[in-house]
């Protein structure tokens, strides 16, 4: 088990090396250079050149790449070209909002989606199934920012019930935290819950057609026991997979939601960094994401074990 975890984490290394190469090449082979942006709106060519030299951007590509790799290997993601702050610190600062948003969204989605999927599967082919799945596909088809604007407009601007934007840490109290998080989490959660509900349904359908469900019913068990114990536990693996995939997809949604609700999370950090060509941040964050990806996948695999005794490591 421990060995398995270590192996899995080690297997992240080649993936991250690939990511590092992709990102480095993407950044350095495309036009646009941070020096000009740093120099400001009214800078002249000479000043830009001065900044370029000071950032080491005039050195050969390979030299920059190797230098960067070496630094990463020593655990140093570099410092932001702009603020001069260490990338690690910037990521850590932004981690909390993003993680809270993701987790809250996740919880909302799971709480809504899994029972929805279970019920839809149970009522397969009836109007209940049809309605639930239609709603799911409608929400799934709705761009997040439109949902976001609709929510802001109603809850914040019209009814003034909730704040428009921003983030409060959980340490500021559960009230402020939730009031800031609820709208973003809902606008993101709807899409995610729809995905999850659809997947839960199909996972459940698959399980409900299995022999052991027939066995369970042949024992005289009631519907809820059959559904929520015998079936759901078996459907858990694909559902957890979807939760995991969703969590990764969620990151894309987070970028949009963080923009709409001005949440200082990692998504926004990355977009800003890309727009400014703050290379160390872009590289650092994307490496970080690929690490998170590996960890999420690892966690999913470990969770499989909890629900499915057949899986061993």
């Amino acid at each position, binding site marked *: 088990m421990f060995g398995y975890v270590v192996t899995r984490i080690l297997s992240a290394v*080649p*993936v*991250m090396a*690939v*990511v590092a190469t*992709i*990102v480095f090449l*993407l*950044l350095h082979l*495309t*036009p*646009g250079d941070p020096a000009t942006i740093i120099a400001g709106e009214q800078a002249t060519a000479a000043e830009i050149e001065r900044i370029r030299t000071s950032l080491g951007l005039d050195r050969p590509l390979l030299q920059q790449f190797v230098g960067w790799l070496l630094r990463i290997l020593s655990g140093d993601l570099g410092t932001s070209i702009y603020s001069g702050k260490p990338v690690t610190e910037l990521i850590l600062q932004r981690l909390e909002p993003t993680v809270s948003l993701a987790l809250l969204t996740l919880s909302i989605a799971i709480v809504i989606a899994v029972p929805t999927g279970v019920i839809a599967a149970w009522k397969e082919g009836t109007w209940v199934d049809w309605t639930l*799945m239609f709603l799911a*596909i*409608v929400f*799934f*088809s*709705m*761009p*997040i*920012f*439109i949902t976001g*604007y609709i929510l802001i*407009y109603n809850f914040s*601007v019209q009814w003034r019930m909730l704040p428009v934007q921003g983030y409060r840490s959980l340490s500021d109290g559960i009230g402020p935290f939730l009031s800031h998080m609820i709208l973003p989490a809902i606008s993101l959660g709807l899409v995610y819950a729809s995905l999850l509900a*659809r*997947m839960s349904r*199909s*996972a459940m*359908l*698959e399980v409900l057609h299995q022999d052991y469900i027939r066995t369970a019913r042949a024992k005289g068990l009631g519907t809820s026991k059959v559904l929520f114990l015998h079936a759901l536990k078996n459907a858990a693996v*694909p559902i957890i*997979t*979807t939760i*995991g*995939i969703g969590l*990764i*997809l969620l*990151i*894309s949604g987070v*970028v*949009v939601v963080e*923009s709409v609700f001005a949440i200082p999370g990692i*998504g926004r950090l*990355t*977009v800003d960094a*890309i*727009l400014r*060509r703050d290379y160390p941040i*872009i590289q650092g*964050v*994307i490496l970080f*994401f*690929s690490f998170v*990806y*590996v960890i999420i996948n690892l966690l999913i695999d470990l969770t499989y074990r909890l629900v499915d005794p057949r899986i061993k490591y």
Partner: protein
Amino acid sequence: MSSTRIMISSDPVPAQASAAASRGRKIARWMLRNPRIAFGAALFGIILLLTLLAPLLSPYDPLQMNPMNRLKPPSSEHLLGTDALGRDVFTRTLYGGRASLMVGFSVAIAATFIGLCIGLVSGYFRAVDNVLMLVMSGLMSIPGILLAIAMTTLSKASVTTVILAIVVPEVPRTARLVRSIVLTIREQPYVDAAIVTGSSVPRILFRHILPNTAAPLTVQATFICASAIIVEAYLSFLGAGTPPEVPSWGNLIAEARNFIRLAFWILLYPGLLLGLTVLSVNLLGDGLRDLLDPRLARQMKARS
């Protein structure tokens, strides 16, 4: 149709009644059985028709601006009002569909094709499998939208760039789907039979394995298409989409969002059409998935 019939069940249950059914009743029954496909296709067909007939339906040029006549509410002159540069929203919404659908189709076709090639090679040739899958994992671990933003902002903004930027993150998923199918199919006895009866590798790949990817890839392609249309909108929203000259729905929405509170109609109609399109494509995909093969759902899950 024969290929799909096989997939419904290996033991079809033809009913006596069906022999006498007229063609019309057959169609009606087919639609009853696949309401999602029927509804999705109808909705999608209407939207497609609207966008294709845009020049006939609207007297305006989608790019013709008149800044002095900006943000006008819907009127008889401008059915859906005008936008921030005084362009006709109705016209732009229709033309916008062309760009968005083009992006959707192109991405779906390109991602499917590239993913198919990679997946076939990776699934059949062990030697390259590890390397290809490593690169795919690498690509997958970068959140798609960030990769796309990076690609569009860092290179010249054009429709092609946007298509490419949406395609790249989709490729690994498709490649993995195809690979998993290849891995399953190559274990099928009929592939063994083909080997034993002297079939060459290309023949096995193209005659025996490839056709099995058609159904799941069709389904996958519809979902990619739907997602591409949304992603295009996200990219435009984040300022990294198609050039503003191109009146894609994403651009219309992105331009409109600053005016929601002054002129909601600029956002409403392209937004509505975008949502309906994605909905129709998703319905189509969902229906196709269940029609083509209920077991497909499992493979789709494994695609990540």
